[in-house]
Each structure stands twice: as structure tokens, then as C-alpha cells.
């Protein structure tokens, strides 16, 4: 059986034409999973006979071997990985059970390591754990950089729309000028970026898979494109939308290992096949209500191709890196693809920072003036504002502003980002201005009053201008800090420089080049500001 035949023709024919590229990739990936079969037939690290799945299979030997550390993100939740409701230190989910099967097959005890979903790949590469799982999507860049298991679950990329739109919005081409959300850095995000070029949709990136659906229901989005597993979970939780029946693409969940761990990957593949054959995987998926008839077809294809390839395999070394030529994407090509997007994101970062700082400076001056000149009630209120803002994380403030208050005021994401960062920095700026106002010698203020200036004129003509000189240097430093803190607004769907870099890094499978490019762009923005701050400090510092 050839690699291409691993993938069912019927599946690809059911998918609309705009996603042919994705489907072609899916076919390649399945072939890759199959391609490893030649070496997986007698994996080096797996016991000669993979034991049958089932509870209480950990023999005494398992306890003597080091635990199998595997990483996942419990924040992603069920059915993948979630904290147990009764014993929160334990995890549950189908990925948890599959990890346990793998560990058991290797004669080891599984040990869970919590890691943010977007960092699973980088963490496995640096050796934080041996295997990463949590609904990780197979894709070219992943296989280029890592050792990737065979696919163990086939998912569909499905569109979720509001019920009222279900009859007229089926394909991405139907969403010209409309906002479609998904998780950043996923296959769906890549599809939305392509659809932006081809159909003029507006892609919206999220850091989690819960808020896209709540935003869909509330009207902030017109559709969500995500795995059918996530879509169906959210349908049960949130409701208020429908999932379009025709998928836009097919993808696969895989386990990811460090590139050097090909032997372990081969063992994992052998165990996964064994668990497909004995029905353990099916049982697990049924437990978590994600088993469907097409999963049986998918597993059959995986097993058939493995058997065929095992028979026809020749001298492919077990540890040879698995990198399909068609899937290899050069770093240069990726860089040229993403550089314009990075520069656009840099403009967003700069615009966002300038607007937020303008708000922070204006509000900070008012707060500082109120604290210096106001009555007891005004001062108490302003102190409360400053302490609440300084005493709570800016991430929490952004969440509350964007999601928490959405029933009261539905701010656009960019506006919420400007207001959120502006309100946060205003608290810090106000302390700078207050200190600067108090640093002006009282005798100067008395001199100004004796000269006949009103209190407002004293502030505007004497105290304020001199205080600004004290404040200018720390203000500029704060603006540089704000440039970097603006990266936090990606949690409310604003794709700024760091978020764009993270997306780039996820697709490239490495942070090296994206990180360097991102750093260069940040430095290009912040170094001139730091220089200006130093110059102003030298020129205006009080003698």
C-alpha cells in the first residue's frame, strides 16, 4: 500500500474545494504515520509483546523504571486533559488515558507535567518531558522539527455559526467582511489566514477555545472554525449556535516527541497500533463520547498501511528522521511569508501603545492632580483606584473589561485593549506625576501665589511644567515597558507583535528565527525611545 492510499478518498471528496491543500497535507501526514510502520514493526524500546490494555496492568517492573513524563495542558479541559473534579491534582481525559496506555506499554508509570498548550512542542524539545499530548495537530512544521507519532484520532475542522445564520453561511467564502475566530497557531488559523486573502474574511485569534464560542453567541464573531471535538463540547456548554455538518478540512491528533527520540516514538507508534487493534483506544474514545464510525475507518487505514509498509519495508533505519520532502518548508520561505505579518503586527503594537499611553498620561495627570489638590473623598476614591489597579494583574483587568463587562458594554477588542492598558498604566503614571508634583519646592508655589496666580495657574504655569521634567524620564521608561506589555492583549484577540510571533513560531516549529525577528522589531521601537529618555534626562534634569 502506498502512503497516499493510507488516506481514504471518500473523506477528501466530502470536503469542499477551498481546503484541498489541507486535505492534501492530511493525506501526507497519514502517510508519514504509516511510513514509520516499517521501523515500528519491531520497535527497539517496546517490550517484545505489547501487553493488552486494561486496568491494573502496571507490574512491579514499572515501578522500578523512571516514570514516563508526559506534558499536556489541563486548562484545555475535557475531553483531552482536565483536572479531576474530586482530586484536582489528578488528570482525566482521553489524552490522559492514552498517555497511560503508552506508559504501560513501555513498562513505566505515567507522570503528568502541566504546560501551556502553545508551549508543549518547545517544552518537549528542551526535555521537560518525553511526550507531549493535548489534542496536538499534525502539520508539516511539526514533523520537520520533532519526532511525531502516528495519528491516533481524526478530527474535522467545522464551522460553528449562530442559529439564524445556519442556512446561509456554510463555507469560508460566505464570510467576506465577517469575523471568524479560532485558536491562534492552529491549522484552523492557517485556513483563516488563507481565507482572508482569498475571500476577505476577518480572522480573529484566541488563546483559548472557550471564548470564541461565547463571542459567537454574543455577536462579536460571525463564526468559529475549530475541531469538531471542541465545537461539540462548546455546543453542550454554551449552546446558542449550530455546527455546520460539512467539515472544511480533516486533521489528526498526534503525540509529539523531541527529534532525538525517534526510538521512543517508534515504540509509541507500536503501542498505539496495538491499542487500536485490541480496541482499547476505541473504548477510551467511547468513554469520552468522541467515538464515531469514521474513527473505525481511520484506524483501519492506519493499521492497514502499517501492515503493508511493514511487509514492504526495506532498509529504512529506525532512527532516520521522518521529514517528507513535500512537507519541508524552508526557514527562508517561512520568514518571507511571515515578515510582512510581523511588521503589520508591529504597527498594531505601536498604535496600541501610543493610544494606551496617551490615555494613561491624561488620566494619570488627572488622578495625580486629584490626589494632590482634591478633598478627602476624592483622594480616597483615587487611592482606591490606584491600589486596585496596581494590586491586580493586568491580564485579569483585560479579561474583566472585555469578557466580564460584555453584557453591559461590548467593546471592540482593540478599544478594550487600549482602555485596559490605558487604565492600568494610568495608575502607575499617576504615582509618578504625584511624586513629581510633590517634588516642586513649596517656596516656588508660595512665590507664585504671592505674585497673584490662581491655584489653577500655579499648577498649569509653575508646578505642572516643572513636574513634567521630573516625570519625563520615568514616563518614557514606562512607554517602553508598555510597548512590551501590549503583548498581553492577545488574550482578548488582538494580534500584536508577540502573538504574531507565537503564531509564526508555532507554524515554523521553532522560536529561534521568529524570536530573533520579533526582538529586532521590538528593539527598533524601544531603543530610540530609550535614547530620547536619556537625552531628555540629561537636558532637563533639575540642577
Amino acid at each position, binding site marked *: 500500500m502506498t502512503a497516499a492510499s493510507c488516506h481514504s478518498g471518500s473523506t477528501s471528496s466530502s470536503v469542499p474545494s477551498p481546503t484541498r491543500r489541507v486535505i492534501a497535507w492530511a493525506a501526507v501526514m497519514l502517510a508519514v504515520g504509516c511510513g514509520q510502520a516499517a521501523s515500528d514493526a519491531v520497535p527497539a524500546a517496546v517490550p517484545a509483546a505489547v501487553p493488552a490494555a486494561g486496568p491494573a496492568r502496571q507490574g512491579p517492573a514499572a515501578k522500578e523504571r523512571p516514570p514516563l513524563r508526559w506534558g499536556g495542558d489541563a486548562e484545555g479541559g475535557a475531553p483531552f486533559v482536565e483536572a479531576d473534579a474530586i482530586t484536582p491534582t489528578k488528570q482525566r481525559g482521553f489524552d490522559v488515558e492514552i498517555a497511560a496506555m503508552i506508559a504501560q506499554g513501555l513498562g513505566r508509570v505515567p507522570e503528568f507535567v502541566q504546560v501551556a498548550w502553545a508551549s508543549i512542542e518547545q517544552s518537549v524539545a528542551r526535555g521537560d518531558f518525553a511526550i507531549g499530548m493535548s489534542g496536538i495537530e499534525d502539520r508539516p512544521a511539526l514533523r520537520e522539527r520533532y519526532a511525531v507519532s502516528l495519528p491516533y484520532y481524526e478530527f474535522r475542522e467545522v464551522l460553528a455559526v449562530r442559529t439564524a445564520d445556519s442556512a446561509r453561511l456554510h463555507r469560508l467564502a460566505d464570510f467576506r467582511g465577517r469575523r471568524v475566530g479560532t485558536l491562534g497557531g492552529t491549522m484552523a488559523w492557517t485556513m483563516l489566514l488563507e481565507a482572508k486573502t482569498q475571500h476577505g474574511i476577518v480572522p480573529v485569534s484566541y488563546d483559548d477555545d472557550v471564548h470564541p464560542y461565547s463571542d459567537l453567541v454574543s455577536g462579536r464573531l460571525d463564526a468559529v472554525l475549530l475541531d469538531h471535538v471542541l465545537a461539540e463540547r462548546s455546543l453542550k456548554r454554551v449552546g446558542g449556535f449550530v455546527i455546520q455538518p460539512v467539515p472544511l478540512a480533516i486533521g489528526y491528533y498526534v503525540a509529539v516527541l523531541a527529534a532525538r527520540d525517534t526510538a521512543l516514538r517508534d515504540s509509541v507508534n507500536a503501542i498505539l497500533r496495538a491499542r487500536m487493534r485490541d480496541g482499547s483506544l476505541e473504548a477510551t474514545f467511547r468513554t469520552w463520547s468522541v467515538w464515531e464510525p469514521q474513527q473505525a475507518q481511520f484506524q483501519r487505514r492506519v493499521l492497514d498501511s502499517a501492515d503493508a509498509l511493514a511487509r514492504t519495508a526495506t532498509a529504512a533505519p529506525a532512527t532516520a528522521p521522518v521529514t517528507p520532502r513535500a512537507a519541508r518548508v524552508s526557514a527562508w520561505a517561512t520568514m518571507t511569508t511571515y515578515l510582512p505579518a510581523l511588521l503589520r503586527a508591529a504597527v498594531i503594537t505601536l498604535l496600541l501603545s501610543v493610544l494606551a499611553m496617551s490615555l494613561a498620561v491624561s488620566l494619570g495627570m488627572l488622578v495625580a492632580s486629584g490626589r494632590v489638590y482634591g478633598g478627602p473623598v476624592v483622594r480616597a476614591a483615587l487611592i482606591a483606584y490606584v491600589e486596585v489597579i496596581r494590586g491586580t494583574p493586568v491580564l485579569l483587568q483585560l479579561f474583566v473589561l472585555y469578557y466580564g463587562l460584555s453584557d453591559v458594554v461590548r467593546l471592540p477588542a482593540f478599544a478594550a485593549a487600549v482602555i485596559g492598558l490605558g487604565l492600568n498604566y494610568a495608575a502607575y503614571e499617576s504615582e509618578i506625576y504625584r511624586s513629581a508634583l510633590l517634588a516642586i519646592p513649596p517656596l516656588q508655589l508660595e*512665590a507664585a501665589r*504671592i*505674585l497673584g496666580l490662581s491655584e489653577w495657574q500655579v499648577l498649569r504655569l509653575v508646578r505642572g511644567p516643572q513636574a513634567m521634567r521630573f516625570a519625563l524620564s520615568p514616563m518614557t521608561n514606562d512607554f517602553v515597558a508598555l510597548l512590551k506589555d501590549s503583548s498581553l492583549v492577545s488574550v482578548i484577540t488582538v494580534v500584536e507583535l508577540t502573538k504574531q510571533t507565537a503564531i509564526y513560531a508555532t507554524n515554523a516549529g521553532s522560536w529561534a528565527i521568529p524570536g530573533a525577528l520579533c526582538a529586532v522589531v521590538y528593539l527598533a521601537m524601544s531603543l530610540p525611545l530609550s535614547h530620547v529618555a536619556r537625552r531628555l534626562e540629561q537636558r532637563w534634569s533639575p540642577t
Partner: protein
Amino acid sequence: MSLSPVTNGATTGALRIRGLHVERGTQAILRGFDLDVAAGELCVVMGSSGAGKSTVLRVVTALQPFSSGTVSVDGVALRPGALPKESALRALRERVGMVFQSHALFEHLTVLDNVMLAPMHGHGQTRAAALARATHLLETLGVLPRATAYPRELSGGEAQRVAIARALAINPPLLLMDEPTSALDPARRAALGHSLRALAADGRGLLIVTHDVDFARAVADRVVVLSHGIIAEQGPAAEVLP
């Protein structure tokens, strides 16, 4: 030296203080203090530290409240009790100028802008009128060449003359000075004495607080010695000072 003659001098004199009492907490600073400064008179107040000299200046400029007594500057009366709002002090602000010991020049403004600030923004003069007045004052006091300098670039003597020009910019009938010679060498001190005599000769009342006996002897029409909040002695300098 010729400065603009004072035109709003009142028959009551530049300053009249009767029965002034000032307390800080439970401590009495001034205890029934009386003082008159006539138009054209240069009065020097002396006394040991803590005697209440600076408190007199702060009361007269409405920076310090007083508990009882009367204070009248060129006919404008201040009442005991809490300080009034600045808006109620407009008449007083037009009648009294003050030169601080440390000069208290505005560091962010040039010499010229320091002198023009009050006439333009506090007293509604046009920029042209304020500029003409400031130029005249700076020229008369010998610091016009430093008009574009900032206070940190001035010597102590220059800064003091700028502070005098700033206080005189609105042409007040009463000028107060706190320790004017503290940062001056003998030559500058003598020059300052001439300038102050000229100001008095123009009809302005001057009240100067100092520890400098020689300076007081040289310039004062009258010396008032303050001790523990009351006048211990007063009279012509030749009689009061040894």
C-alpha cells in the same frame, strides 16, 4: 536708579499691624505685635532665630493665618481666622511683593519669563506691556543681559536682582524681603542697599527681615527688634543698633 513711582499709595501707609497674635499649635509665635511701615519708609525687622520675624512676612502675604489682631496692606485688610481663598486675595496680591531668601525663581522659565509671568497671567496685562515693564526693571537692576538665561545659570546676586524685578513687576506699594544679604559679598551688599533706598525713595514701603546688623545700619529708616513675639525695641538704626 529710577523705578516707577508708586501711584496707589494710601493715606494709611504701606503696612499697618495692630495686636497681631499667631500660634503654632499651643506655642505663641507673635503676641500682640504692632508695626507701621509708611510709604517711602525702609523698615528692618531684626531678632534672634525663632523670634517670629519670618512669621510677620508670611502673615502679611496671607500665607499664614493669624488668630487675632488687624493687618492692613495699603488699605486692604486681612481678617483673623482661616486663610481666605486666593480669589478673595486679588486686592492684596496687587499691593505686596515678596523676595524670598532663596529667591524661589521658577526654574523652568528664563529670567524674562520669570518677570513677565505675574503681570500677564495674574494681573491681566498684555504681553507688550509686561515685556516693556520687565525690560525696564531688568535694565534698571543691571540684569537685562541675562534676560534669556535660566535661574540655574545665574549667580546669587543676579538671582536676587531678578527676584526683586519679579516682585516689582506689578509695581506693589509694599515690598517684603527675607534675609536679602545672605548670599552677597560686601560689594553686592552695598549695591543692594542703594537699590533698596531708591525703591523707598520712589514712595514704596519696604519691610526687610535680616540678621545683618551692618546692612540694617546702612539702609534702615527704622529698626524693629523682635523678641519672643513682641517688639523689644524700635527706632532709628543709630539708636537701636550698637
